[in-house]
């Protein structure tokens, strides 16, 4: 389904933030905002639902902790116990301090890597994927706000001009 969208360009993140607030105040739905860098507070201003990535990070951390514990228990206690520094390893608990660094590292490792992978999947990103941003300048020094048009083109134009947009384009968009 093709729909008409309006693209408003901004060249400053503070102007963009104010514009987003004005558009939201006019009870319009912002389709998407493309930025060259993350803008603090933009998600809140746009009214996006809070990210659940932090929760997945916590869960992945727990997975990493579990993997480390099971792995070290198998390697160092069950499979091949050794006497290191006068501390024979026959009990995981008694040798726990030696395993803490590994438990910590694998917790961080799992949380970080799995979170990045989740982020890619959730954002539909993969290698050689064609860029989705409608204008190449959003990777350089421009911010772009995309709003769908429902027979209110002139209204939208006036509103966006008043918010300090430096350029306004209309284009067709194929929704995925």
């Amino acid at each position, binding site marked *: 389904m093709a729909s008409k969208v309006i693209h408003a360009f901004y060249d400053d993140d503070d102007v963009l933030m104010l514009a987003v607030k004005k558009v939201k105040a006019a009870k319009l739905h912002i389709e998407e905002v493309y930025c060259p860098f993350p803008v603090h*507070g933009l998600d809140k201003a746009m009214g996006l639902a809070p990210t659940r990535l932090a929760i997945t990070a916590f869960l992945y951390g727990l997975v990493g902790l579990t993997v480390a514990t099971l792995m070290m228990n198998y390697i160092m206690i069950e499979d091949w116990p050794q006497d290191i520094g006068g*501390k024979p390893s026959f009990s995981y608990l008694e040798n726990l*301090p030696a395993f803490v660094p590994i438990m910590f590292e694998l917790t961080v490792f799992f949380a970080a890597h799995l979170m990045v992978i989740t982020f890619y999947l959730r954002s539909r990103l993969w290698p050689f994927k064609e860029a989705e941003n409608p204008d190449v300048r959003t990777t350089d020094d421009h911010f772009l706000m995309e709003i769908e048009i429902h027979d209110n083109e002139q209204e939208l134009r006036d509103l966006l001009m008043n918010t300090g947009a430096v350029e306004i384009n209309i284009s067709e968009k194929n929704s995925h």
Partner: protein
Amino acid sequence: MYTFSNRLKIASIILMIVGALGIIGGFVMAPGTIAEAKEMVASHDQGHGDAHAAKADHTTNKSDHTVAETHGDEHDSSHDQHLLDQLKNRPWAALYVAAFFFMMISLGVLAFYAIQRAAQAGWSPLLFRVMEGITAYLVPGGIIVFVILLLSVLHMNHLFIWMDESVVAHDALLQGKSGYLNPTFFLIRAAIFLAGWIGYREYSRKLSIAQDASDDNSNFKLNFRISAGFLVFYLISESIMSWDWIMSVEPHWFSTLFGWYIFASMFVSGITVIAMVTIYLKSKGHLPDVNDSHIHDLAKFMFGISIFWTYLWFSQFMLIWYSNIPEEVTYYVTRIADYRLPFFGMVAMNFLFPVLLLMNSDYKRINWFVILTGIVILAGHYMDIFNAIMPSTVGKNWYIGIPEIGAVLFFTGLFIFWVFRALSTQPLQPKRNPFIEESKHFHY
């Protein structure tokens, strides 16, 4: 302008009076003779009826002392004398732990403040007066600690056994260290450190207030320069201070990251107190421009530095546990044998509690949540200093009783009194700090 409310003033004075009674009570209750000391320990054992595993413990303990103090064959009498010394030490150690703990809070705040100045931080200028108010306590707090150290040098107590010439005479290790660990040099170092910290505090405060009335930024720039210089002095002096005032209660033992470890403790306690005082003042309608994002940032620091503290605690513990060298490992052996609950309880309070409570970013903005976590963190870091001082000064005869609680109450009262009195002398919001606008609009 903030006025020190009468209710808070009266509360702090009551705390001081009750605390002073507790401190005096502790000194009165301390035994004067060996017979009294033995009787106290006996009745204590009976009263608690706990299985002290008397025989085994007793013998190992005795042989420990023989090695440590090379007292030769006077086993029994030296042991009894030791017991008396420990029980006599208890009120002193309780006083010292609390005095040091509150001095450490204001010193930690001073370091945090100097970092904000040196980094020219934009978010924090709104909190500068709060920090300056807390560092005001460094003057009485530092002097009290110095007086306790002076009394130790004058042999009023046995907190620092290396000050006892008869002990040093029998101890080759202490003789080897005496070029550094001797009473005169010890006091000179303490005086230099306190003079440096208090001198910076007073000068920086003066410049900070002068900046409000001036029409250029020269005071601000000078403050930036002296703060950067102070941080160099602070890192060196804090490290040496931690060896002198804490590590040397156990003069045979040493750890090379001890300075960092104590620094982490004082830094997190200090930041916690900044957050608590700020939230208190805000709840009374002051500091109108301080928003949730400022509290959020302080809570992030509380969270982060708590983890940093745990990292250092564990680094120190694991290396010593693993290498298992006798002169190093005794430190943890005594703590795990005789101080199991405070030792591991402190790790739970200083690590698990803040990590779980402050992990969620929204919780860092809920004021009562920050206060609740702050109280646990402060109690945990009191226990940290307790665990550092007590095992070497009172040994197994520790207890959180009248002397300890009394000392904590007294210094809480003095701290509140001094800090809020200092806060009431100047407007709570700096007017002409060049970053004040950025701080007002700080949002996360």
